[in-house]
């Protein structure tokens, strides 16, 4: 058993899947099944505004039986994110919220100042906040101090498909917060990126664009699922240290049977 818990709740898969941008809801549903994701992020802003407007899509998502993590994607201020989180709590009937406060519409970098402010207010209201943040350790400490119990640092800018942009900073983050659940959120492109993150000891990976925009989203979902399992097993097993010179895998000296 290798349990993963967020805010005391067990989550059965280390692959978290976003639900936006798929070619069709049917392909999304298949990707969810093949990825075996247990936790799905859902954007409130565009799909469910206006009361019953997004009912059909929401029915499809809730019909998968997976846990839901609503997000505040596209919010550009703490105030906007807080309002969206409050709406999400009503619509999705959960106090979990993936908090995004975006600083720039083109780079989609987190506005870490607004993020900490919104996280403080939402935690005070009883929300379980999953903040989308950078790899900055001091911002991470502030987020923990205002009540967050999970951190979601970026691997690279949202949708960029670059993989782990700053492995040094991410390794430092893992070392600095050994017992906080850390989820790589954003920027991955291929399964090896996810395996890389898991080998570094991150607890889970959140994917959306890399799966949704793949030529075959369903196949890519399974590819990522396997990579995440592989990376996690490698982390738990303990990897050998890399070195500059070869080491024979078969000892050549002192063998009893020559």
């Amino acid at each position, binding site marked *: 058993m290798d349990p993963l818990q967020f805010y005391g709740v067990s989550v059965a898969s280390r692959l978290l899947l976003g639900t936006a941008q798929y*070619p*069709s*809801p*049917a*392909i999304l*549903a298949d990707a969810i099944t093949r990825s075996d994701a247990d936790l799905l992020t859902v954007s409130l802003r*565009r*799909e*469910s*505004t*206006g009361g*019953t*407007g*997004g*009912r*059909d*899509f929401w029915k*499809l998502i809730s019909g998968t039986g997976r846990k839901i993590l609503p997000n505040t994607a596209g919010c550009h201020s703490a105030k906007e994110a807080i309002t969206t989180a409050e709406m999400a709590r009503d619509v999705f009937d959960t106090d979990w919220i993936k908090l995004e406060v975006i600083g720039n*519409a083109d780079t989609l970098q987190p506005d870490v100042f607004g993020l900490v402010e919104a996280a403080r207010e939402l935690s005070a209201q009883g929300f379980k906040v999953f903040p989308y943040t950078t790899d900055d350790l001091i911002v991470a400490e502030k987020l923990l101090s205002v009540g967050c119990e999970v951190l979601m640092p970026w691997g690279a800018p949202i*949708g960029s*498909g670059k993989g782990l942009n700053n492995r040094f900073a991410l390794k430092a983050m893992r070392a600095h917060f050994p017992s906080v659940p850390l989820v790589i959120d954003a920027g991955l492109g291929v399964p090896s990126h996810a395996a890389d993150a898991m080998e570094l000891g991150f607890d889970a990976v959140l994917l959306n664009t890399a799966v949704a*925009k793949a*030529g075959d989203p369903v196949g890519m979902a399974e590819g990522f699922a396997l990579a995440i399992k592989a990376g996690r097993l490698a982390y738990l097993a303990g990897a050998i240290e890399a070195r500059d010179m070869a080491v024979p895998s078969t000892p050549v000296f002192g063998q009893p049977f020559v």
Partner: protein
Amino acid sequence: MRIAAVFAGGATLQSGAEIRPFEPDWGNACAGKHDREAIGFLSASWRLTRMGSRNAMQIAVIGAGVMGLVTAHQCALRGGRVTVYERRAEAGRGCSWYAGGMLAAWCEMESAEPLIGELGLESLAYWKTHFSHVVEKGTLVIAPPRDLPDLKRFAARTTLHEWIGREAIAALEPDLAGRFETALFFEREAHLDPRDTLAALKAKLTDEFGVTFVMDHAVTADAIDADHIFDCRGYEARDALHDLRGVKGEMLILRTKEVSLSRPVRLVHPRIPVYIVPRADHHFMVGATMIESGDRTRFSARSMVELLNAAYAVHPAFGEAEIVEMGTDVRPAFADNLPRIRRDRNILRLNGLYRHGYLGAPALARRAAEIVFEQKSFPEVER
């Protein structure tokens, strides 16, 4: 009602059709030249059948959007006596009204299933055969320099395109000269003006085929007495198709004399993929948002910002354009975004065209008509 004779062109003749003396002027005066070419030389008796013999199959079509009108056409071509019922006062005022009218069978392969390409090719041929409104100048797909990876992805997912550079872009669209370094050109695609096309189609149905239109009249299939009923109500058909969902779209019509385009231009962009379709009199259709929602009432400020931003990115002169119209409606779609024909007694429900109304409807209508008139079946859409 049995079909007795089958024509070489695929059209059918019912047994016992009443034969009247052939009127030689009738065909020239009324039947479109293209119709005759498409169907081949048909016997006089067929013409009489389609003028409405006593024994013609009675066909009812509910909904006068693009799906309903092309279905009426396909049935009339096969000798059916067609009545079209429409809840609105005018035809084509549902989401057909707000469509881009791009016959983009190849571009759509970027995100659609192969079936859409197959239907799209057939539909493209249909529009070209029956209407003079089709503009065959291809599609230009462009991206700002920093979004080139998205353009490469687009190219990898599609076929029958050509990478072109500055000179070729300038030759195709002089007003875009110097604005984009590279583009994808889909030479074989075409576009039409949906509003003109549906008006012409309705006129053709009335004048040439004697189709009856009952406007301003909401009916259900159960209340109609006909041999066969085609339910083409789009999103309104949720009462009968419970797995139908709505995908909201918002579009703008802009007018400016400062830009000219000859063909649809698609802007590939990670957040706001948008197309601009040139229309007559310096009008441009800019569309369209894709939102998982069945709400057809509100056009959001954010959508306006996104559509205008994209138009501005294609050419800054759009910043000075007049906003002539803001439109919003709901595309009917099934979970896989593919169209279907569902049989329910003598009712055929044609629906789920999603964003492929003009691209899919003629091919779907042809299949539906052949199901009724020729007892064929089409597993690819009968799901």
